């Protein structure tokens, strides 16, 4: 049960955080140069958006959930399972950002899901 909660947090909070940050960054607009002053301006503009704070909070949650999982399980088990974020990302992009998900992408997502299942079975 603890295992399930931790992995759900890593995957859902991690992917959710990236989606929120991605949404905020689209609002901020494109960085026109890599000049430090320009980058500082982009960061300041981003920090004024609520989506950015929600996203950063979710990503921090995912990071600490990852630390928690690593305190209990092997890294060669935990990290492959976090590949489930590709599955969450496909559904999240579909629902939250109105992205179309191609048949080939679904195939990749299906393969990831099969691989994670094998990793789980190999942990018995």
């Amino acid at each position, binding site marked *: 049960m603890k295992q399930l909660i931790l992995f759900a947090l890593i995957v859902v909070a991690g992917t959710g955080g990236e989606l929120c940050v991605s949404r905020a960054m689209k609002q901020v607009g494109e960085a026109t140069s890599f000049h430090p002053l320009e980058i500082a301006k982009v960061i300041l503009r981003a920090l004024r958006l609520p989506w950015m704070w929600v996203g950063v909070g979710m990503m921090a949650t995912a990071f600490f959930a990852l*630390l928690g999982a690593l305190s209990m399980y092997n890294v060669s088990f935990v990290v*492959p399972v976090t590949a489930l974020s590709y599955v969450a990302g496909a559904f999240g992009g579909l629902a939250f950002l109105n992205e179309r998900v191609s048949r080939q992408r679904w195939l990749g997502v299906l393969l990831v899901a099969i691989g994670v299942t094998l990793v*789980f079975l190999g942990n018995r």
Partner: protein
Amino acid sequence: MTPHKPLHLKTFLMIAVMVIAGPLGNVLLGKGMKHMGDLTLWPPPELLHTALRIFASPSIWLGIASLVTFMLAYMLVLSWADYSFVQPASSLAYGVVALLGYLMLGERVSPLRWAGIAVICLGVFVVGRTNPRTTEPSNEGTSLA
């Protein structure tokens, strides 16, 4: 589809940094967390104590530094190379993390887990080969003068 450009040395180097620094960061986090014992999260003073204990570990800081290196290499390489080229290459990271866990931390990786990791790498590779942008016609690239 644009024809494949030759693989530049700096692209290859950056992808090598990504594929090593990302998994290395995770393995170092794993090394730091492995001997933490029980993590008490409640009441708040205990949570603070646990957080201090975690961030007193050099492995954790090395791991974070390694993950930051990974992020920088990732963002740098994306500024000149295609996402659909970089992302499939980074699918190797799932194999590297298991290899490093085995070599550095002495983790036992069962054949079934190796098989699962191989399938995950393949899946991530297939995901990455698909068009990364579907929400609007791709006319960016001309906008960047």
